[in-house]
């Protein structure tokens, strides 16, 4: 090889860098392509598993994940950037709404929820999808972390009928939702968010069910 010049060195190392980048981008692209369908299947399965926890499969007979509308930023649901609402129907009649909702005032930031509201206005179930509440303290809002495995805290919401909604508050605030002493903030954030989402679903019931699937409200 001839003696190294600055230009020669730059050209050589530059082209080697480009070659490595191309090769390893190809490796990543290949893996992405090979795993894509499997990952999508897992994600759908995961979603359906979550949904089956808040809404029994017998309550609807449509393809839930396909009957979806998008909403823009909605204050009642705590959504700053919009979200999805899935519509469960049985024999063509409205059965329930599954709303993505966010409790903005968790102890450590936002708590993302999925809230199922039956067509009669009662709450079918609630799950925390993503949160950063303190492990061992506020994270009992997530049934996987709740020490009470028999009746996790969040299952209280499933007992709420439409008439009970005004009492969808912590017992401390005059409602009927029990909470763990010392970790009120997480529980209150979820409870308030559920009450708001139920109010939103009741107020917009007809509009939400009437909109064609895939619509953006």
């Amino acid at each position, binding site marked *: 090889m001839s003696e190294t010049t600055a230009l020669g060195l730059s050209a050589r190392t530059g082209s*080697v860098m480009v070659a490595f980048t191309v090769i390893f981008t190809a490796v990543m692209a290949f893996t*992405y392509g090979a*795993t894509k369908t499997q990952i999508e299947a897992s994600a759908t399965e995961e979603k359906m598993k979550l949904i089956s926890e808040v809404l029994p499969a017998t309550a609807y007979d449509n393809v839930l994940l396909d009957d979806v509308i998008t909403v823009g930023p909605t204050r009642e649901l705590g959504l700053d950037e919009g979200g999805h609402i899935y519509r469960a129907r049985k024999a063509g009649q409205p059965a329930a709404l599954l709303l993505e909702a966010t409790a903005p005032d968790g102890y450590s930031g936002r708590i993302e929820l999925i809230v199922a509201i039956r067509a009669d206005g009662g709450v079918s179930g609630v799950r925390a999808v993503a949160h950063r509440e303190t492990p061992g303290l506020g994270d009992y809002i997530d049934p996987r972390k709740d020490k009470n495995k028999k009746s996790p805290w969040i299952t209280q919401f499933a007992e709420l009928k439409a008439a009970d909604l005004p009492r969808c508050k912590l017992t401390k605030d005059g409602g009927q939702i029990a909470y763990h002493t010392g970790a009120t903030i997480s529980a209150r954030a979820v409870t308030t968010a559920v009450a708001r989402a139920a109010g939103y679903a009741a107020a917009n019931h007809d509009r939400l069910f009437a909109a064609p699937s895939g619509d953006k409200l």
Partner: protein
Amino acid sequence: MDIKAYRDIAWNGIWKQNTGVVQILGLCPILAISTSIVNAVSLGLATILVMAMSNLVIAALRNFIPYEIRIPVFILIIAALTTVVDLAFNAYLHELYLVLGIFIPLIVTNCIVLARVEAFAAKNEPIGSTIDGIAMGIGLTLVLAVLGAIRELIGSGTLLSGIEMLFPGAEAIHVFGDDYPGFLIAILPPGAFFALGCLIAGRNWLEARKLARARMNPPAITDTPAEA
């Protein structure tokens, strides 16, 4: 290289140069994930995989990597392999992926991976380098497992909680009974520092005791040459 050299590499990684308690490298994931045994060991296994792969690939390619740009190339390769592991976990071990999700991409930033590539794989042949990666990863996993066990036991009074996500049907052990109130600080970040500090102290104590014994019973050879 022969078998003895490979054994030395392995021993080096697992005990003598243990990443967690001797080199004290890669603390961010160690402290963040060691809240329970299952989390800790799972991340440890993912790290072993990435370290073995990156050491193998880089040792095999070491003659093609110009010295001047080795660090960017190393990071490129590590990032690519981590992405591959991330995608593979997401596709084929989805339950585990839900637990480890955000931590797998963080393996890229774990300086222990880059450190071993730079210090070992860039200068040695592929088989030895792979063993080094695996051994270093095992060393890290052991520290993670012990830390996870200590923190989980003190913090929530259980062992192996979350095991049902890996083996459906398996159950966590409630060591102190169901009504153990929990000791929060062990789960929070300070608990990780306390526990790691105790582990480092423990290892140093073991090594110091070994050294002191060696000094008390000097080897039988007495005719050492006098020094000026």
